[in-house]
């Protein structure tokens, strides 16, 4: 079956003083949850802002829902209506109240349901046992509650694509688990519902991640379905005396007094034949960290 893509972008470029985002090709698979992974300053937020139309000063072409161009994003109401976006900070004005946000959402989005918004606010226990409090100001909310508010807001809309910038970071472990559940429910709530989120909390979000894109220094350095990535890479552990033999073969490696642990491409595993090694399937966290390590400026 051919995979369809909800966003198809080519030659995306954005130059800053000391940084350039350069993405020759970007495809977001439809009907899946995709994680955007990368170290701080890798360009994740810039890419998300470009895709959502928050940032317009870039080069490149973007196609949405296999139908609309990047110009349509600001010319045809349906495009932004179908995309739900949650940011980090700078999302709501600090003096806005929850009630104002509900009112503003009703004006801004044709398919916003206030009753759903209140339900999500209560389900996420945003205001404690007292329930929905529309007089609560944004600047009185904790970072975690602000994220919950953004989530309640986008989930109360009828959208086809959710784009979320670091939704898990300010959340506690319980709420991260709930976030995974919400993402899964969203994906299952209709055909071709798609979620795209950036995250540093790879382990917490792994259960909900179908597809992963890893960025480093403004470039996509690895991407693929998680199951495919887990077949592409393999964790290798071995004794200290074999370190020099495996070093050129392993993708990345860390060593201790007892031995080494690294990751290598599965296709290179044959080259390690005869050595006393143990292999295991890597987690997405391990793949991501090692791919980032390989491409990072951090030494």
């Amino acid at each position, binding site marked *: 079956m051919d995979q369809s893509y909800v966003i198809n972008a080519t030659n995306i470029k954005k130059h800053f003083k000391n940084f350039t985002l350069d993405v020759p090709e970007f495809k977001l698979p439809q009907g899946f949850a995709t994680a955007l992974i990368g170290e701080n300053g890798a360009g994740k937020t810039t890419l998300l802002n470009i895709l959502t139309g928050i940032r317009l000063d870039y080069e490149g072409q973007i196609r949405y829902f296999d139908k609309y161009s990047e110009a349509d994003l600001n010319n045809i109401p349906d495009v932004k209506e179908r995309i739900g976006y949650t940011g980090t900070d*700078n999302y709501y004005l600090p003096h806005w109240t929850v009630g104002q946000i509900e009112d503003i959402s*009703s*004006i*801004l989005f044709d398919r916003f349901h206030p009753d759903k918004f209140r339900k999500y606010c209560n389900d996420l226990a945003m205001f404690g046992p007292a329930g929905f409090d529309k007089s609560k100001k944004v600047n009185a909310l904790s970072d975690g509650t602000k994220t919950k508010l953004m989530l309640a807001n986008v989930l109360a809309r009828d959208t086809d694509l959710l784009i979320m910038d670091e939704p898990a970071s300010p959340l506690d472990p319980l709420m991260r688990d709930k976030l995974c559940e919400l993402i899964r429910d969203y994906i299952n709530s209709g055909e071709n519902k798609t979620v795209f989120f950036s995250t540093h909390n790879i382990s917490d979000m792994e259960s909900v991640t179908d597809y992963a894109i890893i960025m480093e220094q403004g470039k996509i350095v690895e991407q693929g379905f998680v199951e495919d990535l887990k077949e592409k890479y393999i964790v290798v552990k071995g004794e200290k005396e074999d370190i020099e033999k495996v070093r050129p073969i392993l993708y990345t490696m860390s060593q201790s007094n007892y031995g080494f642990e690294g990751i290598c491409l599965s296709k290179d595993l044959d080259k390690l034949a005869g050595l006393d090694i143990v292999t295991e399937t890597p987690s997405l966290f391990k793949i991501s960290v090692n791919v980032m390590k390989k491409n990072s400026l951090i030494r």
Partner: protein
Amino acid sequence: MKKTAYLAFTSFSYRLFCLLMTVAFLVGSLLANVYVGKIAAILLATIMPVMYVFLDFFAFSGTSSRKQRTMNFLKSSYHGTAFFRSALKTDIILKNLFLLSGYLGFIIAEIIYYTDFKSFEESMLMILVYLPITQITTMLTLFISRRLSLTLLAQVSVCYLCSMVSTLLFVIYSFLLPEEMNSVATFVIITFVVLEIIAITLAVVVYKDCAKGYDSSFADT
């Protein structure tokens, strides 16, 4: 029923305070005219801009700053730009109406306690100059405060300074008035028209500057 952009963008407490202040200025200026006299108009011209600019901090502070990155929520909607512009436009119009209402109390007092035409004419001519000066002071300070994302204290300080300067200018202006009453009326009406054009232009500038601030937040430049 959906609220208007202005009603949704501004909080209930902001609107309530604006309304209460307007009523207070209306009644206050009426009583001040009766018990203090025409000189109270100077006080009104100084206090009104300070109070409205003070309140503005709680709704539109920093919205025209070129560094503002605070409204990604609005930017994620197709209607975001139109929504923000509509709220801004309504606010600027209302602020000017509120300023007008402050002097309305003054005019009402003149009508109620009418003694002679000369005194009435003097008061009206005075208001014709004070009103646009108050508008100009308010718009000018709004332009500065919204652009620079000032703190509340800095915002009020700038406005107070502007009010003092405008009052000083009015005092200087009063010395320039001709001796003859007929000439004074003509002079004042011409001044009013000129100042009002400046005030309206400034209001448009404040609105456009805020809208431009929002538009520029889609890019770094």
